[in-house]
């Protein structure tokens, strides 16, 4: 069985807040849900499936379902870090195809800027009961260093340069200048990225994403519900997920991510190829995250990512593969240190023709939203979603 064409994205909402000093985390989930329902033209009582991940406070889905007063007959709180929400859209399509629900709500929200230790570099490396805890968490690994190690190895094996990585930030900044909600709207040049301090070698400060409070929500609906809504039809045609980890440390290879597994599977289900894609939302915790995933998804050969992203190739209207036209995590928003849901939201905007006119891809009828959660330098989960404008 395939989910191809079995479900549609009916509504999306990106919470505009970036500094949530007077809101609670449950409140941000609910405000995001209300926004996505309004976007779809549905009401709370239409929702019969709910999806959330590790950012949902308290007892996770149970707490949030109760807080929002949902009455659902299907729920799923699969946790794969920031990629969870891309995976959830795929799972929602599966549930809809199986008749388990017809209006699925996915939410994310959080306030890392208000939480002591909420910043990735400040928090403990992981839970003490994780099987690897004693052997890994003592070494001061943070998201920065765990991605820095990937970049270091990629440079060693393929000759990738800091200048090439910088082009990814430059492209994101070109897009962010048009987004009034973006945290960093100033266009930057390659030289400015290289002049910023090294945070975790070889990554500079401007190779890193922003830290933001906020949230987002997505509504996935059955074909029948989709056709009843007064919204453009955004059809889900492929999705896949995959884990990757050191797995005993044998043959460790940090130059590829689990996207190398989820990407081809999603493309196969969708029946399209990377060359067909008009717009790409690619998770961008760091510039190296984008480069590795573009290779893994097949937009270029492994090792060619540096050349692929250089010279503005990711800038809408300039290059061949417009990416993260909202400014992405590098410039716009990275709510609760998780990038998945904003990747889905901007891809839907592009497919609807609702992106900012300065970054809207003409005739955008095929888009990908892809992300990883956890850390590419150790264990992580990838999720790939391919959507088509009907």
């Amino acid at each position, binding site marked *: 069985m395939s989910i191809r064409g079995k479900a549609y994205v009916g509504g999306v909402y990106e919470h505009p807040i970036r500094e949530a000093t007077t809101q609670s985390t449950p409140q941000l989930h609910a405000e995001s849900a209300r926004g996505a329902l309004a976007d779809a033209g549905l009401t709370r009582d239409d929702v019969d499936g709910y999806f959330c991940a590790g950012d949902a406070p308290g007892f996770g889905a149970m707490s949030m379902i109760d807080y929002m007063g949902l009455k659902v007959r299907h729920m799923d709180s699969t946790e794969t870090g920031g990629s969870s929400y891309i995976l959830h859209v795929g799972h929602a399509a599966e549930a809809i195809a199986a008749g388990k629900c017809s209006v699925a709500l996915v939410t994310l929200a959080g306030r890392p800027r208000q939480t002591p230790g909420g910043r990735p570099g400040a928090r403990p490396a992981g839970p003490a009961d994780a099987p690897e805890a004693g*052997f890994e*968490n003592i070494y001061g690994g943070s998201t920065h260093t765990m991605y820095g*190690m990937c970049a*270091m*190895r990629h440079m*060693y094996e393929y000759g990738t340069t800091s200048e090439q990585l910088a082009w990814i930030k430059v492209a994101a900044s070109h897009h962010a200048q048009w987004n009034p909600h973006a945290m960093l709207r100033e266009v930057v040049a390659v030289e400015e990225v290289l002049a910023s301090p*090294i945070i975790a070698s070889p*990554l500079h400060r401007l190779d890193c994403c922003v830290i933001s409070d906020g949230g987002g929500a997505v509504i996935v609906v059955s074909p029948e519900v989709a056709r009843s809504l007064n919204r453009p039809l955004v059809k889900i045609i492929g999705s896949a997920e995959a884990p990757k980890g050191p797995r005993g440390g044998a043959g460790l290879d*940090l130059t590829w991510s689990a996207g190398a597994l989820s990407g081809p599977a999603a493309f196969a289900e969708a029946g399209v190829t990377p060359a067909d894609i008009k717009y790409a939302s690619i998770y961008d915790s760091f510039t190296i995250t984008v480069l590795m995933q573009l290779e893994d998804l097949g937009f270029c050969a492994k090792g060619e990512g540096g050349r692929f992203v250089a010279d503005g190739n990711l800038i809408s209207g300039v290059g061949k593969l417009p990416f993260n036209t909202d400014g992405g995590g590098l410039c716009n928003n990275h709510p609760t240190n998780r990038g998945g849901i904003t990747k889905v939201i901007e891809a839907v905007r592009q497919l609807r023709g609702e992106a900012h006119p300065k970054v809207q891809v003409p005739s955008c009828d095929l888009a990908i939203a892809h992300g990883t959660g956890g850390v590419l330098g*150790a264990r992580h989960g990838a999720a790939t979603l391919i959507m088509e404008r009907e």
Partner: protein
Amino acid sequence: MSPMSRKIPAPAVNPESKPFWDAAAEGRFLIKRCNACGQAHWYPRLACPLCFSDDTVWEQSPGEGTIYTFSVMRPDSPTPFAIGYVTLDEGPSLLTNFVDCDLASLRIGQRVKVKFQPTEGGPPAPVFAPAD
């Protein structure tokens, strides 16, 4: 760039990992090898992550290998440190810190050897230093 000054917190020890940390307290570096598939793995666990046999045994290792990759955290700060993976000569790669060296001199492929560094209230932890 200065050498690592970072303090290492006490590692979480559980019944499965206790033999490793008991040996570490005596300055011995243990890895696990699987009798069924013959391969060594890291971090040590009861069931081999490569073939899932439970016929695994502790083996003392000289703790020698090469740097697979690394990253130096805030190299221009007063308290930089280096974290990375070492590929042991027995095969598996492990996460660690690099010590007793100028952090700016670290290179992928460099030969390193294990040593044990005191932790904050726990058994000593394996770290690696240049072999030459």
